[in-house]
């Protein structure tokens, strides 16, 4: 494998509703910051990969507006995924592995606030025969998953409240967080249910933000800075869709992706210093920690998605936040996880290290 590293990361503050900027307007300052931090000019970028989703934007081919933030002329090599931008990161990493170039820029833009009611929009991601016609509430399938976990004795409402308290407290140190604060467990348990057993704070607040990661290969990566977050292993896997034929209390796709990523990396998920997990709901943390084999690892030091969920940028933010802690020397090894689909259907695991492969 080629040595490929994250060399820069930038993000915009997650806002509950940005009514000021178009796609390019949110994104462009973030791209300038990410490139500027490592002295890379737009023309030095060999490949652009991005992730966003038309159903959040409310227009077909909406992402082409975001290309104004990198320019489509002279023609650039670029690609877009209609999903979380963590999968654009996976594509850019593969592209660099193929030796097509040395520097790739990955951006994610997620605007959850444009849809007036996400209950109208999110059924569009569900099976059109057996799920979408019922128009489940946006949090209903997550509520079923959390209920199944509590029934199976894998967590409790109090455990979930403690995760919320820890996450929002960690987010007080994150200037990009949409929500943060020092709450008490009882205060969290007093909040109303959104979809039992999930309460208000168990559900990530949806917002608008952009994130940018710069990837570079080999000597280009070493030239751009003193430290690199080397992507040592990456894999993504999917469970079947219909919730009635899944065991909602386990994430087999996460387990398999982590095992494959560990095989590539030479170290496993249990050996990282910090993990940034794409937890759109508090119950996802014990579920993912179990699938990944995390025990004493620091989880979501940024506050994680419970402090702000800019829809299709959320997974890429996890990769950026994990890499940032390697770049600034606070972690030696880090794990980032991203998800797509209802009840953690599709999962990506990325293992990074301050040291390149031997």
């Amino acid at each position: 494998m080629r040595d490929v590293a994250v060399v820069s990361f930038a993000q915009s503050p997650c806002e509950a509703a940005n009514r000021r900027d178009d796609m390019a307007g949110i994104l462009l300052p973030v791209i300038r910051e990410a490139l500027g931090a490592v002295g890379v000019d737009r023309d030095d970028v060999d490949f652009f990969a991005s992730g966003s989703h038309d159903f959040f934007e409310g227009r077909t081919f909406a992402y082409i507006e975001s290309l104004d933030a990198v320019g489509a002329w002279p023609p650039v090599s670029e690609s877009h995924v209609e999903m979380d931008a963590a999968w654009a990161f996976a594509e850019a990493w593969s592209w660099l592995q193929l030796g097509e170039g040395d520097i790739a820029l990955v951006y994610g833009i997620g605007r959850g606030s444009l849809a007036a009611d996400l209950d109208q929009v999110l059924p569009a991601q569900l099976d059109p025969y057996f799920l979408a016609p019922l128009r489940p509430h946006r949090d209903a399938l997550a509520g079923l998953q959390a209920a199944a976990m509590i029934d199976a004795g894998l967590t409790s409402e109090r455990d979930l409240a403690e995760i919320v308290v820890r996450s929002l407290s960690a987010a007080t140190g994150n200037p990009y967080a949409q929500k943060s604060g020092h709450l008490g467990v009882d205060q969290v348990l007093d909040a109303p249910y959104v979809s039992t057993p999930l309460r208000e704070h168990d559900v990530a607040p949806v917002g608008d933000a952009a994130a940018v990661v710069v990837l570079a290969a080999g000597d280009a990566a070493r030239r751009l800075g003193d430290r690199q977050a080397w992507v040592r292993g990456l894999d993504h896997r999917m469970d079947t869709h219909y919730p009635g034929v899944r065991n909602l209390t386990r994430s087999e796709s996460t387990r398999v992706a982590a095992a494959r990523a560990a095989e590539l990396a030479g170290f496993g998920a249990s050996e990282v210093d910090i993990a940034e997990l794409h937890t759109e709901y508090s119950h996802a943390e014990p579920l993912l920690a179990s699938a990944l084999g995390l025990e004493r690892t620091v989880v979501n030091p940024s506050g994680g998605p419970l402090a702000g969920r800019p829809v299709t940028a959320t997974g890429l933010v996890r990769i950026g936040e994990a890499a940032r802690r390697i770049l600034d020397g606070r972690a030696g090894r880090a794990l980032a996880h991203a998800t797509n689909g209802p009840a953690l259907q599709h999962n990506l695991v990325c293992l990074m290290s301050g040291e390149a492969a031997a």
Partner: protein
Amino acid sequence: MREPASEPSVLREPASEPSVLREPASEPSAPTLPEPLTTMASPFRMDYTYVAGTGRSVFLRGLAEGRMLARRCPACAQVYLPPPEFCSRCLSRLDEPFELDGRGVISTFCVVSFPFPGQVHEPPYVVAHIQVEGSGTRLMHLVREVDPADVRIGMEVEPVWAGEDERENSLTSIRHYRPAGDEYA
């Protein structure tokens, strides 16, 4: 939702034994399967907010005032019409807006001859890219007051503004373009 016309829609009572499976259809005693439906309705309705962004809002507000506002990149001197907020080449914020008179030449065009649901204009009609004088980009608009067969690339055109009381934050504040006076008089 459609149902095959041949299907006799006999209603049956639900099976009375909750825990017993019936034999599969291939067995002689199996119940007859209904004729499969082939399609289902799958409608979506979604309400959104469109956010024009700071750059586009400058342009749209200008249209409401009957002014066509362009902006120049301080780094590469490219002039945008309509202007975004940032130069997509240099990533620089564009300079303050200035007004153009909107006259220009057709850089390319097509004749729309087919009808479609929601169509506003009666076909055939001309949609063109117009290179407005003083701008480095092209503006898309209708070209009318001319037989579509007479439209040419390079033709000089000018904007026809809506009446002052009809103007709003929209490209419809320009009703259409038409051949500029001298050429087509």
